[in-house]
């Protein structure tokens, strides 16, 4: 997260995530539970730019998500910074060049983020999200595939840019 380009990409990705979140909510509110664009961007930026990027994107995406929810402000941000930091930390120590490895890694990180969020939510609200939202079980899978696919696309575009 050192140069202007990476900052611009991060801001653009967050904006796109918010547009996708608004779109999904307008089409069918249940889709917001199935595809969480904020979780996707946090993992995406963490894997591409490392733990520092993950921390900053986790804070920004979490605060935006919480601003549009009726609850405790900072709850999503907390789960995102932990998962973002760990995803960025481990992604640079592991070999994530293949699509399957990347998907599996993203799935574990997404599961960790979701678990943390559900546990904190249950602690504060004394209510589990696991019974009310059936789509929540599929969220880590969709997040993993989206993150993996987007990283593949990002690297393709980056390579093309370098050749061009």
């Amino acid at each position, binding site marked *: 997260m050192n140069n202007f380009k990476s900052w611009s990409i991060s801001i653009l990705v967050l904006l796109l995530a918010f547009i996708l979140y608004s779109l999904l909510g307008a089409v069918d509110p*249940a889709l917001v539970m199935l595809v969480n664009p904020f979780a996707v961007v946090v993992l995406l930026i963490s894997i591409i730019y490392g*733990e520092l990027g993950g921390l900053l994107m986790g804070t920004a995406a979490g605060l935006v998500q919480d601003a549009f929810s009726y609850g405790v402000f900072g709850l999503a941000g907390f789960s995102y910074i932990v998962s973002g930091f760990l995803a960025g930390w481990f992604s640079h120590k592991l070999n994530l060049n293949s699509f399957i490895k990347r998907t599996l890694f993203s799935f574990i990180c997404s599961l960790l983020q979701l678990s943390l969020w559900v546990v904190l939510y249950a602690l504060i609200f004394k209510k589990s999200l696991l019974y*009310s939202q059936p789509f929540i079980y599929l969220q880590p899978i969709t997040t993993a595939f989206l993150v993996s696919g987007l990283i593949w696309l990002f690297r393709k575009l980056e390579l093309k840019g370098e050749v061009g």
Partner: protein
Amino acid sequence: MSLLRLVKNKFFLAGFLFLFHLILISSQVPLGSKQTLLEKMAFQLFSPVQKMVVSGINFLKSTHAEINQLTFLREENQQLKKEIFFLAQEKQILSRKLRYYRSEKELEENLAGLRQMVIPARLLGFETANFYRSGVINRGYQDRVVKNLPVCDRRGNLVGRTAEPLSAHEARVVMITSEESGVAVISVTDRMLGILTGDGQGRCLIKYVMASSNLGVVGDEIETSGLDKVFPAGIKVGRIISIVSEKGMFKQILVQPYFDLRELEVVGVLRENVP
């Protein structure tokens, strides 16, 4: 070590952000605290984007619907012309009858008053964690929206109440299907009183009806009683779908609300208690 180098240190930043979030969360517990300045800032920064997206989708939807309807327009037009003719006749008869009861001026004044009581609003989005809990509407304090105003769907069924407005043109709606909601209700047939709260899964529960009570019929309609001084009496809420008396001291009465989440594009905020 300079401040910039300290900030760039990932462990320092991680610790700082971890602590920042913990302080942020702890400052809002117990629940019910006011929105923080940071929350309001984040909301106001991104709400124009959400407005644009929702407006774009609504435009596409309406354009698509208009194209579909174009083929039926001619037939419908002829039919409407006929209907207008009969309605004009009917109106003449009704106007004469109305004039008999009260003067036209008085009637117009009453109608104008009623219109001012309702603030039409568009639902911009739902909560990510649970869309049965809350949504955001495009009306705020500049549109005379304040906390605890009833919100109804286009058919007049109760949707929820407003929370404290987030900005000049945005406010949050706490739905009746939310666990945080509480509405004083009454059943239409046997006048059973109770407190309606959400189950967080799209349905509502009527609380505090004794298990020994004879009141409560499956299929009965539920409306607001007005006893909570927040919701005016007589707003339709839903229908009882099941009653369990065997478990515990109180009956477990499940209510299916009338409003449909997928049809909540436009809602009405009742500014004052409609008589």
